[in-house]
């Protein structure tokens, strides 16, 4: 069985489209997206008297036609941001009223996800190609129900799904980050969550852990060291491990066949931990490149026959 795994596309529409085409491109039997589906940035496009004004990556544009508007919206979405068309009054309201930006973000994220799932329906031939998604620490709670209701995408968060005899255990929670995001828990709590779902696995030797957080100190979790103001120190050259010890302990003690991770975009890599092959394909969603792992699973032997990290 061939699996394509990617993660952390953070709202990049071009990466989502590529993800939907990945099964056909890599001749994979199913595709898995390991969390952090939603974006981090919202770009206001101010509608004013028949034209629109927007600043993208520091460059101000005045858009005169609907075509120009659509082009810039596409550019913004491809970069992983949400274009939000607002009036000048709405922009003022957003910037002044507490909570207004949060609410608008939620609207844009959920609407965007709805659109993505509609696309998936067509691309995945109505569920003929299995597609599995779970949350990541940056994903708002509202996405869970939306994905659950999709007819062609399986929501794997906190579940054990059977992939032709390979149990897939998924968990979008991570250890605490400096950004205090949605699905974070202290290590002991995270360990308890992992154990709760791992207990449902019938055969650990064939199991796949799909945990968003990478295991601590494995090289799959190296992020730039930051100072108190979240500025990388020493020119970003100093890296430090920021993964989860609970995830690491779970891998070491359960020794699944394979563990798949994301979360730390810079830490693309592969690590063997006993009999477990651990992979973080990393993410460069901002470039419109879908990094992923193509995995050949040998059903008879219950092991990973081949893997390849790709920049699609």
């Amino acid at each position, binding site marked *: 069985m061939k699996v394509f795994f990617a993660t952390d596309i*953070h709202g990049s529409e*071009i990466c989502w489209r*590529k993800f939907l085409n990945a099964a056909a*491109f890599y001749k994979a039997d199913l595709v898995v997206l390991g969390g*952090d589906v939603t974006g*981090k*940035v*919202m*770009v*206001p496009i*101010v509608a004013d008297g028949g034209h629109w004004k*927007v*600043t993208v*990556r*520091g*460059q*101000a544009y005045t858009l005169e036609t609907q075509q120009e508007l659509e082009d810039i919206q596409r*550019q913004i979405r*491809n970069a992983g*941001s949400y274009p939000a068309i607002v009036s000048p009054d709405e*922009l003022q309201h*957003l*910037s002044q009223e507490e909570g207004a*930006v949060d609410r*608008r*973000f*939620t609207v844009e994220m959920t609407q965007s996800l709805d659109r993505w799932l509609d696309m998936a329906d067509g691309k995945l031939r109505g569920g003929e190609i299995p597609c599995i998604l779970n949350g990541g*620490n940056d994903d708002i709670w509202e996405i869970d129900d939306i994905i659950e209701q999709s007819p062609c995408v399986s929501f794997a968060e906190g579940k054990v799904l059977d992939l032709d005899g390979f149990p897939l255990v998924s968990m979008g929670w991570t250890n605490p980050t400096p950004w*205090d*995001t949605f699905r974070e828990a202290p290590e002991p709590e995270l360990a308890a969550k992992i154990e709760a779902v791992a207990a449902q696995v019938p055969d650990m030797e064939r199991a796949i852990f799909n945990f968003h957080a990478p295991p601590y100190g494995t*090289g799959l979790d190296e992020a*730039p*060291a*930051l100072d108190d103001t*979240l*500025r*990388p*120190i*020493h*020119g*970003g*050259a*100093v*890296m430090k491990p920021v993964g989860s010890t609970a995830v690491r302990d779970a891998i070491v003690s359960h020794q699944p066949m394979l563990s798949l991770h994301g*979360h730390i*975009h810079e830490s*693309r*890599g592969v690590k063997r931990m006993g009999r477990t092959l651990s992979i973080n394909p990393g993410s*460069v969603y*901002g470039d419109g*490149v*879908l990094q992923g792992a*193509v995995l*050949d699973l040998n059903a008879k032997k219950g092991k990973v026959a*081949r893997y*390849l*990290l*790709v*920049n*699609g």
Partner: protein
Amino acid sequence: MATEAVGGEAPTLFLRKATGLVRGWSVRDSLIYACLATNFVTLGIYEFTFAGPAFPKGQLLTSVVISGIWVSFLVVAYAGLIVTIPRAGGDYVWQTRILGSGVGFVMAATGWWFILWLWAPIYGNILSVQFFQPIWATLKWTWPGGGYAWFGTKNGVFIVTVITIVLAGFLVSLGMGGYARIQKWCFIGGLIGFAVVVGLLLFNSHASFVSSFNLEAHKLFGVSNAYNATNHAAAKAGYTTTPFGFGPLGPTMLLVPAMMFFILWPNWGATLYGEIRGASDFRRVFSGMFIGLWITVILTVIFFLVIAKTVGWGFYQNLNSLDYNLTPQFGIWPYPFLFAGWLVHNTAFQVILLLVLSLWFFGWVGTLFLSSTRVIFAAAFDRVLPDRAAEVSEKRKVPVWSLILMLAPAVILGAIYAYSATFRTYTLDATLVIAVTYLFSAVAVVLLPFVKKDLWRASPASRIKVFGVPVVPVSGVITIGLLVYNLVMWLWKDQYFVNSHDSLLYMLAMYVLAIVLYVVARVVRRRQGIDLGLINKEIPVE
């Protein structure tokens, strides 16, 4: 959900609090890296010893300024690549993405891996002539046999090379965390040491230098009237120098390829992390490298001016020419900072000054293998190298195999370097091979707007224009000009010692080795059912 508005009263974007949204790194940090990489002391002064006598009609000062201007375009080109594809791995990532996997691997393996084996003995030699020899000579230590002269023997060169390799390997295994802090203090200390040297040369007269030189040379080396003796020896060997000045341009341009030995590396540590990119990032990345480069150029110019004022330009070049002709005065490499320290007749001061100035070396030596291990890791993750190459030991977090792949060949080549005088001339390939790697990155930056249109359109670099012309690709073209000019000169002119038959074979062997590695990897992986051609193939969007 916590959010942040960017753009003042009328925000141009809103950020929600999410992992990885970090502030840009400071220009100060990157300029320190750039300045230490274009190390005017360890590499620059080392190179002047060779370059001045090799091209006696050229002007070092003018050539450094011309080189600085020309390399500034390389800075623009690389800043464009960094903000467009801001990934650790640099040339390897850019070239594999834009030019293809095979080209990327061959260029990165030769320019950032194999050739750095050769830089180990160069670093070792610099440590020997700028640290061990002058300190031993100043303290008149006679151990090991022969005192300071021992470091110039075959055994001495080899042992110091091994010390350098062990030191660089140890620093890699420690990680950048502690070393980056050390680097910062080394940079500050090195600048203070240089300021002391400038002060000494500025506030002392030429006559004072001559008498101090004669006095200390007699005290330490037993040479009488050493200043005049040096000039006579150079004249006797047939060397005549050109007075300090600015021209003529023709012979001065011949010095430019020699200056690349130290001035071509402002982009050495250039990686950028951060996901929200804007025009300010280009300015920040560019400024760090550009200011670092020009600090080096300015320090070099100051050095030349104070040398000309107090030491005497002709004398400095004569000292260098004697070393160039393998008859160094006092049997020691002519370290100008050693001689500047002689203006104070106090051994403790002289040693402390040498120690402080050695910070230029120690702040820089740890970078020797850092880039190499990154390339080895990247190639292993791409399945071009065996998985083991990327293994990190569980206990000590040391990248064992990648270090072995660096250290073992470096030690072997260090031994050959130490015991074969012929092989030493090959070290000049060290610049050439990296320049070839840069050339392919320059080609990549020129092709970027055509090959990766969406990526380029979205890049802040695409909006840097002068009179409507995009600056980054044009800078790429000018950089290609710089690198092609240097390559042609290196291969054409005998004085650079690069174009010898054996040297060319040596370089060729490295490229063949990289190509063979890549082809073997393709074949082996295909047999395993892995198609390496898929690695950088883009998935269709529609």
